[in-house]
C-alpha cells in the first residue's frame, strides 16, 4: 500500500504516463508505416513499369551482306558504310520475309523494323568484316509500335482505325512470330544506346557518361575548395565579425534554390567567359557552386569533432600550427569530409534545374568524349523521355529512373560504408 503522500500521487499518475508513452510509440510506428507505404507504392509503380523496359523485342532477319552495296569505297570507313545501302538491304530482307508486293504492303512492312537498323547493320559489318559477301542472320530491333503489339498494348480487338498498326502489319508480325524469328531479350539499346527519337533505340549511355564527366568536374573543383575553406575557417581564421558574416553566408547559400546557381553560371561562365553552352565542364562548375556549402558545412563539423587534445598534443611536442592541422587534424577528419562530399555529389547527380540555364537540358545524341563536348545528364534524360509522345518511352523513363536510383543507392551506401570503416571514436 502506498504510504506517503508523494507515493500516492505517483501511483495515481502512473497509468496516465504509461498511456502517453504507449500512444507516442504508436504515433511513431504509424509515421514509419506511412512512409514505408509511400515508398512501396512508388517502388512498385516504378518497378512494374520499368522492369519490362529493360527488355525489348528483336527480329532475326537473313540479310545478304554484299560488299559492293554495303561498302562502296571498300575501306569499311564510317563514311563509306554510310554512303552504302544498308537501309535498302534490310528493307529487302523484310520484304522477302513478309512477302509484301504491292506498294501499300511494302510500306506497311518497312515500318515494322526499327528506323535505326541501318546503324546496327553497319556496326555489325564493322565488327565482323570477314562475314562480308555471305548470307547472315542478324538481329534487329522491332519498331516501337510493333514492340507495343507484342507487349499487348496494341490489341487486335481495337478497331483498325483506332490503333497504330494496320491489320496487315499485325498479320506480318504474327507471321514472323510463328516462324520463330521474334525474340524478347535484354535491351542492348537501353544500356549502350544514346538519346534517340526512335523509342526502341533510345538509351542512357550518353547521359550516364555526361553525368560522370559533370560529377568529376564538380568533385575536382568543389572538394579542394570546400576542404580548404573549412580548414581555414575552423583552424586558422580569427573569430570576428567578418568570419561570422562569412559563416552566415555559407549557411544561407546551402538553402538557395538550385536554379539560382544556373542563372549565375549562365551570367558568369557563358556570357562573361564566353564558354560554350551545353558542356559538362560548365555543368560541373555550376554544380560545384551548389555543392560547396554542403561540403564546407560537413567538413567543418568533421574538423570540430576531432578532440582538442590531439591538437594540444601535437603543439605540445613542438609541431607548428600548420603541421598540427595537416598531419593530425585533417587526416582524422577526412572520413567525415568524404561522407559530406559524397552526399553533396549524390545531390548534384539528381539535379536538373541549374543545368536548364546553361543548356544541358537538351536533346544530345553524340556521346560526349570529354568535358568540352556537349552532353546531358541522367535526370535530364528522364525528364525528356517523360515528355515524348511515343508509348514505349513510358517504360524507358521508368527504367532510367531505376538506374538513377541504383546510382544514388550505391553513392549513399558508399558514404555509410566509408563512415563505418574509417570512423574513429574517442
Amino acid at each position, binding site marked *: 500500500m502506498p504510504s506517503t503522500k508523494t507515493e500516492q500521487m505517483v501511483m495515481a499518475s502512473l497509468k496516465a504516463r504509461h498511456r502517453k508513452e504507449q500512444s507516442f510509440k504508436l504515433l511513431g510506428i504509424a509515421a514509419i508505416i506511412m512512409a514505408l507505404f509511400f515508398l512501396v507504392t512508388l517502388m512498385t509503380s516504378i518497378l512494374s513499369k520499368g522492369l519490362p523496359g529493360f527488355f525489348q523485342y528483336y527480329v532475326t532477319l537473313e540479310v545478304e551482306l554484299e560488299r559492293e552495296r554495303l561498302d562502296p569505297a571498300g575501306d569499311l*570507313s*564510317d*563514311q563509306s558504310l*554510310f554512303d552504302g545501302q544498308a537501309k535498302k538491304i534490310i528493307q529487302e530482307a523484310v520484304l522477302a520475309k513478309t512477302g509484301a508486293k504491292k506498294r501499300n504492303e511494302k*510500306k506497311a512492312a518497312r*515500318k515494322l523494323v526499327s*528506323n535505326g537498323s*541501318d*546503324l546496327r547493320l553497319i556496326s555489325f559489318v564493322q565488327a565482323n568484316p570477314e562475314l562480308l559477301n555471305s548470307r547472315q542472320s542478324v538481329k534487329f530491333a522491332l519498331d516501337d509500335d510493333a514492340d507495343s503489339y507484342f507487349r499487348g498494348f*496494341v*490489341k487486335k480487338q*481495337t478497331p483498325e*482505325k*483506332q*490503333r*497504330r498498326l494496320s491489320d496487315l502489319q499485325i498479320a506480318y508480325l504474327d507471321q514472323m512470330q510463328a516462324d520463330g524469328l521474334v525474340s524478347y531479350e535484354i535491351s542492348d539499346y537501353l544500356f549502350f544506346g544514346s538519346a*534517340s*527519337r*526512335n523509342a526502341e533505340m533510345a538509351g542512357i549511355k550518353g547521359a550516364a557518361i555526361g553525368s560522370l564527366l559533370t560529377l568529376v*568536374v564538380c568533385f*575536382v*573543383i568543389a572538394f*579542394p*575548395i570546400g576542404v*580548404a575553406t573549412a580548414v581555414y575557417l575552423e583552424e586558422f581564421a580569427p573569430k570576428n565579425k567578418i568570419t561570422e558574416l562569412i559563416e552566415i553566408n555559407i549557411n544561407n547559400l546551402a538553402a538557395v534554390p538550385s536554379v539560382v546557381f544556373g542563372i549565375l553560371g549562365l551570367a558568369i561562365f*557563358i*556570357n562573361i*567567359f*564566353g*564558354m*560554350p*553552352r*551545353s*558542356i559538362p*565542364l560548365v555543368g560541373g*562548375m555550376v554544380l560545384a557552386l551548389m555543392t560547396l556549402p554542403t561540403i564546407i558545412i560537413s567538413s567543418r563539423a568533421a574538423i570540430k569533432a576531432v578532440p582538442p587534445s590531439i591538437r594540444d598534443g601535437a603543439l605540445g611536442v613542438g609541431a607548428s600550427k600548420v603541421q598540427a592541422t595537416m598531419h593530425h587534424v585533417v587526416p582524422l577528419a577526412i572520413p567525415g569530409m568524404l561522407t559530406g562530399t559524397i552526399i553533396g555529389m549524390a545531390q548534384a547527380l539528381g539535379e536538373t534545374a541549374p543545368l536548364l540555364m546553361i*543548356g544541358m*537540358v*537538351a*536533346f*544530345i*545524341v*553524340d556521346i560526349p568524349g570529354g*568535358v*568540352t563536348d*556537349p552532353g546531358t545528364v541522367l535526370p535530364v534524360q528522364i525528364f*525528356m523521355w*517523360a*515528355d*515524348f*509522345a*511515343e*508509348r514505349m518511352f*513510358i517504360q524507358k523513363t521508368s527504367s532510367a529512373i531505376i538506374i538513377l536510383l541504383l546510382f544514388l543507392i550505391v553513392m549513399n551506401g558508399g558514404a555509410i560504408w566509408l563512415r563505418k570503416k574509417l570512423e574513429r571514436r574517442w
Partner: protein
Amino acid sequence: MKKFLFALLASGLITGSAQARDQLSLAGSSTVLPFATIIAEEMGKNPKFKTPVVESGGSSVGKKGVCEGIGTQFIDIGNASSRMKASELEFCNKNGVDVTEIKVGYDGIAVANSLQGETLTISKADLGMALTAEVPACYEGSGRNYNCDEWIANPFKKWSDINPSYPALDIRVYGPPTTSGTRASFAEMVNQKAYCGKEPIAKKASAARGDKKGKKCRAMRTDGAYIEAGEQDNLIVQKLQEDPNAYGIFGFSYLDQNTDTLQSAIVDDTPATFELIASGDYAISRSLWFYVKHAHVGVVPGMDEYMKTWTKNWGPDGILSDAGMVPMPEAERASYAKAMTDLPKLTADMLKK
C-alpha cells in the same frame, strides 16, 4: 591544392580553344522539338556531321535566343510554334542579327477526351465562350442584369448551359500553362478570334470596353473549369484516360499516338485528323517555324545540311509525318526549300503578310 590549380589552368585553356564550334545549336518551342530532334538525329547519322544539340524552352526562347547576337555562345537556329512578331524582329535588328524565316509544317491543337466519354461536338466560338475568363452579362441564365456591355466572370458551369445540345457535364478542361505556345495559339484562335471576334454579343461588348481586337478575351478561366496541367502533354493524356468526363487541349501528335484511348472533339464540324489538318480544314491549327541566323551559315558547319535534311523528310511519306507533324502542300514546300538556299532577310513587311 595542386589539383585545383591544374583544374583552373585546364578550364582556362579550354575556354580559349572553345571559340570555334563544330556542332549546330538549336533551341525553342517544345512543340517543334520532337520534329527538330528527328531531323537532328537523321543528320547525325552521316559521319561528316555531328548531331545538332536541340534545347527546349518555348517559342519565345527560340525567337529571342536566335536574335541575341552573333557568335558561338548564341544559338544558330530558333524553333517556334508561333510566328515572329514585329517587336521580336526589332530585337533582332537592334542586335544586328539577320534571320530567314522557314515554315516546316503544321500542327493541330487537339481538343479530346476518353473514348469512354461523350464526344464533344461544338462550334469554335462556343468553345471559346466556355473557356474564356469573362463574358458579357446578357446570356440566357447567366447574367444578373442583362447588360450586354458589362463583363462578368464566366458563369457557365456545364457545357449544356451554353447550348442544350452539348453534353450535360461540368466544364472541365485540362490544358497547358501560360508559358506554352500551344496555349497562346489556342487562346488567340479560339477565345479571341472565334469568340470575341465573331460572336455578335461578345464582339459588341469588346468594342464597348475599348478592346476592338478582343485581346482581353485571351485570358483563360481560373475558376477550376480550365485546369493547368503542366508543360507535359503526356500528363494531360493520362488525366483524360482516368477521367472520362474531362476534356483536354494538347498537340495533335499526342492524340495521334493515343487513338486507341482518346477521341477528338468535333469543332466546327471537323475532328482533328491528319488529313483535315493537312488540307487546312481543321479549325484549330497553326504553323511550325524555325529562324536561321545568316551570320552563322557557312561558319558553323552543318547549317545547310540541317536544312537539307528537313526538305528530305518533311513530305507526306516522311518520318516526320509518322511522328505526327502535318506536312505543307507541295507548292509551299517548294517555296520554303527555295528560301533555304536564297536566305531572304526577314523584314517587317514580310511579317504583315
